[in-house]
């Protein structure tokens, strides 16, 4: 512990620090060149072919959101997002089990996609302009229309956001919700203290103990939390979700920029589940439906030798529906009224029933 060590400790990392700042200075010039070269160097390849060669689909998911993506005690992945991973695998590889689930944190998800660790990201990810633009990601057909809401204790006096002046509000970090909270409250001049947690369970403990007055998140998640609220805490009746929805949160699959074929494939798998519900095709009647007299249904299910040129087999819809069912089945099985989450369809009904899901024609 003498003097030499003292100087070594100081001098060498310091020089390294200087070196690093040298790098900072040096790289400033490369900036424009880099932006320009961005479009040209996207020949990273054919994801569809890679998936087929590999025999498994690498799907980036969440493993800690009940109803959307979580792991059961038996070690199986379950959830709304998980089913769409399986649907893609069923369509491309003819095997809904050929999925390698890669659980990702909020910060990791885009990096993982950029680096090619995953083929598709289906992890309740909100479609925003800057994510579409800056993160090198392409957002596809929305699978779940959500919006940010605010949950408060039922015995509190808050009726609308404006009542929440001076409150402490719990929010999950790394999400669009966090940004929305800041911007909406600021725009309306509502003073608040945000408490951002990394982990829902810690956040929930904080909320139970009245560490915060409100809990903001996507309404679907809030509803799930509310319906599961422990009885010793008063059950679901103890909580109230304010009517106001103060953001749009379209959640859907994401793929890398620059591979339009793969984007089409994933896109049309999602569309197929919606189309199937519109046609009334379910996992139970899909076999009979294949003999349907309706030419549109027959074409959709691979009859009439119709090839849309998507890079998928003609009967991919059959495989998808056999594996996971139509959109309504996926919804009801994972998050619908009969599940622990108990979410009503709301905006997620088909357009024919006043919702937002609308499949482009399959022809």
């Amino acid at each position, binding site marked *: 512990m003498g003097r030499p060590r003292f100087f070594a400790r100081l001098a060498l990392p310091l020089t390294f620090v200087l070196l690093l700042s040298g790098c900072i200075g040096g790289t400033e010039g490369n900036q424009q060149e880099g932006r320009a070269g961005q479009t040209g160097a996207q020949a990273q390849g054919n994801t569809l072919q890679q998936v087929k060669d590999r025999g498994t689909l690498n799907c980036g998911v969440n493993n800690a959101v009940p109803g959307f993506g979580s792991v059961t005690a038996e070690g199986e992945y379950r959830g709304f997002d998980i089913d769409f991973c399986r649907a893609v695998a069923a369509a491309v590889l003819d095997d809904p089990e050929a999925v390698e689930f890669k659980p990702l944190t909020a910060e990791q998800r885009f990096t993982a996609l950029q680096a090619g660790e995953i083929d598709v990201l289906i992890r309740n990810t909100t479609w925003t302009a800057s994510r579409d633009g800056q993160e090198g990601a392409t957002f596809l057909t929305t699978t779940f229309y959500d919006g940010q809401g605010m949950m408060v204790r039922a015995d509190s006096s808050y009726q609308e956001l404006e009542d929440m002046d001076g409150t402490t509000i719990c929010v999950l970090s790394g999400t669009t919700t966090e940004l929305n909270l800041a911007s909406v409250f600021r725009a309306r001049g509502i003073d608040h203290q945000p408490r951002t947690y990394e982990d829902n369970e*810690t956040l929930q403990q904080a909320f139970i103990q009245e560490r915060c007055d409100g809990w903001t998140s996507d309404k679907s998640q809030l509803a799930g939390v509310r319906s599961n609220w422990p009885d010793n805490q008063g059950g679901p009746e103890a909580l109230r979700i304010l009517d106001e929805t103060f953001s749009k949160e379209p959640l859907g699959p994401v793929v890398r920029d620059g591979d339009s074929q793969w984007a089409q494939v994933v896109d049309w798998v999602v569309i197929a589940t919606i189309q199937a519900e519109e046609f009334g095709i379910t996992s139970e009647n899909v076999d009979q439906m294949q003999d349907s007299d309706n030419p549109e249904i027959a074409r959709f299910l691979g009859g009439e030798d119709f090839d849309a040129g998507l890079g998928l087999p003609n009967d991919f819809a059959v495989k998808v529906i056999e594996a996971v069912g139509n959109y309504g089945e996926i919804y009801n099985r994972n998050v619908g009224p009969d599940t622990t989450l108990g979410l009503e369809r709301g905006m997620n009904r088909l357009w024919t029933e006043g919702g937002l899901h609308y499949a482009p024609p399959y022809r």
Partner: protein
Amino acid sequence: MTSRQRPPLWRDVRALRVAFQIVFLAVVAATIGYFYTNLLTNLNRLGIGTSFSYLDQSAGFAISGSDFSPSESFLAATLVGVQNTATVAVLGIALATVLGIVVGIARLSSNWLVRRAAAGYVEALRNIPVLVIILFWYLAVFLQLPPIDQAVEWAGALVLSNRGLALPWVERTGGLAVFLGCLAVGVLAAVASWVWRTRRNERTGAPSHRVRWAGIVLLGALLVAFFAGGRPLGLSLPERGELGTEQGLLLSPEYGALLIGLVVYTASHIAEIVRGSILAVPKGQTEAANALALSGFQRLRYVVLPQAFRIMIPPLANQYLNLTKNSSLGVAVAFPEVTRITRIAVGQQAPAPQAIVILMLVYLGFSLAISLVTNLVNWRLRRTGGA
């Protein structure tokens, strides 16, 4: 050297040494260069770029427990994080040292129960990940405090609830220039009186009372500064509101959990260092103290601890570094220290490689500061031999 013939170049040790070092450096540089080129290529390909200009962009997120506004920049957010890390590290180091010394001495107590309890404390906490300890303090202790509408108030000066512990604090009511100026003079005077008393003690052997002297001078300077500056500071007492406390200084439960978690964990390590250092003081010293009829406390204060301190300092410095680095676990309890801010920033579209370089620089800065201070103390102790 002049008359002797030099061996051929390939057998000349000096030449070989130089050659080897050049090759070594070339290999290291090539490796770094290779990865660096890859990094540049990839960043540019993905359109992330290598510039640090993101630091000037507005962050967009808010930070709890600070006045930080979402429209401020990423750089400002990082600075808030640095400040928060520093508050945890400084207070944590102080508390962990005190607790560690207490437990370390308790491990050598003559009371069996105290001795076993201290040993149990050390063995229990040393062997559990600090992350688990911090989570536990947060969930099992700090969140279980009464909610704000049942907050415990004491003498109008303390308000304790699970929104935090509110303490009285100074607040600024006027200009500080005169006050700070007077205070600076006061500090200089205190240092001067300290040095004077020390020298006098060294020269004459009379008791120095340097702590007393310096303290009185400092206190006097403080008072003079306070009144001369036109009473620029007032006391702000916390008041309980409906949704939290107002005024005063609020220590949040997250801060508390991180701080106490780090303190109890680090103290268990410091306790072992303290115990080892005390045992390493030669037995003759204790016997000599006993022969001089010193009391147990005197023996500890004047004979054992001063010698133990010198043995302790290098390993203590390591523990201080560990505590500072472990404060990065604030992520687990949502305390906005610098690692957590960086994570939030990366989640909100700050480029990861740049953000991490900055994060590392921040921690290197902390580590260097701590090594500097502890090395100076160590150096001084060795030079003067005093404690």
